[in-house]
């Protein structure tokens, strides 16, 4: 149990307002949420009477389902907004959309948007607590939290652990959020990818960069592969899939350079045999499905931290 001091953050947009103590408390509570998910009645009344709107201006079925189930298991009502089938495609602005949804007395928003800063806008326009479920390449804090939680469950603590994140770092909000979160919790992050996909400005306290994947996994307790999208080839960031895979694919050959205890992670959805081989994704080191499972508990805990007692 960790005591957290200072005011409770109102939003989870990134980790700027979140102290290490508060983040640890959130992860501690995720343990309780995991226990709830193992029970015959997978639901608690903690957020009864509140309604949560998942506003997804960019499509993501997996993340949306995870948040919606998390909210329902906390007894909140859920209203789901997806840009594809809405007035946004008719040109309604994000501001108008959020103001209309706020008029329905929604108590909190979970926002996914292709543009960096969109969740901040929703926070300003709605006046309600907002959870950023991914804004452009800027941040995806609950993904980083579930990654941290998965590593913590595996090793008991994040203190002194090393996490290698390999792939298209440049376009990855997952890499950025992990690089922000994990050092706060005492872990080291090694970001790795081809020089074209590895922005130098991400180097910071507790965050190092390398273009050498073998060097990155040496001493790593967790190895995380990032999704490489086809369009990066078209834009000339990488030569060919074969070249990329030969140097950066997380597979048994690369993992032979990692410690025996190192686990394999991936934020999903996977491009099998591009950034990760099937033997690594399905092998005994893989915690990829545990990440998905842990995501629900971490999101329950996040909703609880932001909303309980604030109705």
């Amino acid at each position, binding site marked *: *149990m*960790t*005591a*957290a001091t200072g005011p*409770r953050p109102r939003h989870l947009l990134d980790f700027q307002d979140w102290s290490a103590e508060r983040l640890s*408390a959130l992860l*501690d*509570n995720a*343990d*309780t949420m995991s*226990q*709830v998910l193992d*029970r*015959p*009645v997978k*639901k*608690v*009344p*903690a957020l009864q009477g509140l309604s949560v709107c998942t506003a997804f201006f960019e499509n993501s079925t997996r993340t949306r389902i995870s948040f919606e189930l998390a909210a329902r298991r906390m007894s909140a009502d859920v209203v789901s907004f997806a840009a594809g089938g809405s007035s946004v495609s008719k040109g309604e602005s994000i501001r108008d959309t959020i103001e209309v949804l706020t008029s329905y007395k929604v108590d909190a928003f979970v926002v996914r948007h292709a543009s960096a800063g969109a969740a901040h806008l929703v926070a300003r326009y709605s006046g309600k607590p907002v959870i950023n479920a991914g804004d452009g390449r800027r941040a995806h804090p609950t993904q980083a939290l579930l990654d941290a939680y998965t590593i913590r469950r595996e090793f008991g603590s994040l203190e002194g652990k090393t996490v290698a994140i390999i792939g298209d770092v440049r376009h990855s909000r997952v890499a950025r959020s992990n690089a922000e979160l994990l050092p706060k919790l005492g872990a080291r992050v090694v970001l790795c990818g081809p020089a074209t996909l590895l922005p130098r400005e991400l180097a910071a306290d507790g965050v190092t960069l390398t273009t050498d994947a073998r060097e990155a996994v040496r001493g790593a307790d967790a190895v995380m592969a990032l999704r490489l999208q086809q369009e990066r080839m078209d834009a000339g960031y990488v030569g060919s899939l074969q070249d990329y895979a030969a140097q950066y694919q997380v597979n048994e050959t690369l993992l032979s350079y990692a410690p025996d205890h190192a686990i394999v992670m991936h934020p999903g959805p996977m491009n099998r045999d591009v950034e990760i081989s099937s033997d690594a994704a399905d092998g005994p080191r893989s915690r990829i499905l545990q990440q998905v499972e842990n995501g629900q508990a971490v999101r329950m805990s996040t909703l*609880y*931290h932001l909303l*309980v*007692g*604030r109705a």
Partner: protein
Amino acid sequence: MKASILSAEEMRRALTRIAHEILERNKGAQNLALIGVHTRGIPIAARLAAKLQELEGVAVPLGRLDITLYRDDLSEIARQPIIRETEVPFDLARRRVILVDDVLYTGRTVRAALDALIDLGRPEGIQLAVLIDRGHRELPIRADYVGKNLPTAKTELVKVRLEETDGTDSVELWDIDELRNDGLRAEQ
């Protein structure tokens, strides 16, 4: 402090009497389980289990319950949303569960504990044991076993200390204002 309510010796006797009452009412210790409510219900439940073991030679299973997610009075939680461990390592079906807490006051904690317990399974029955019943119920809830009935004013505070959590066994009655001035944390 206004008054000393129970000494260590009196607390021991009260818990021994409760253990006897539990055995009498349930005709033994078969199919019983004890579940303590965080924080001080847990050591009290453990002490009752030890007494039942001593008196009947039966190991009554022990559990612990955190009711944070079931509360309806959220101001305290809002300040510090910390949830503690719930651990009920046995099947509740066909067991008579004795819920254990230190002080019975408004009844809201017990209401939350009943909901939490029922979500974990379907016990044959639930009984309630408390060290102190201080009155002022806000819900139709009563205890089956009471260490001591203590008439109180709402401006008073019942401070239970236990060896396991506080290093000493005692129950004291305080004025809330007096406690604040002493810089002690209000418990009840």
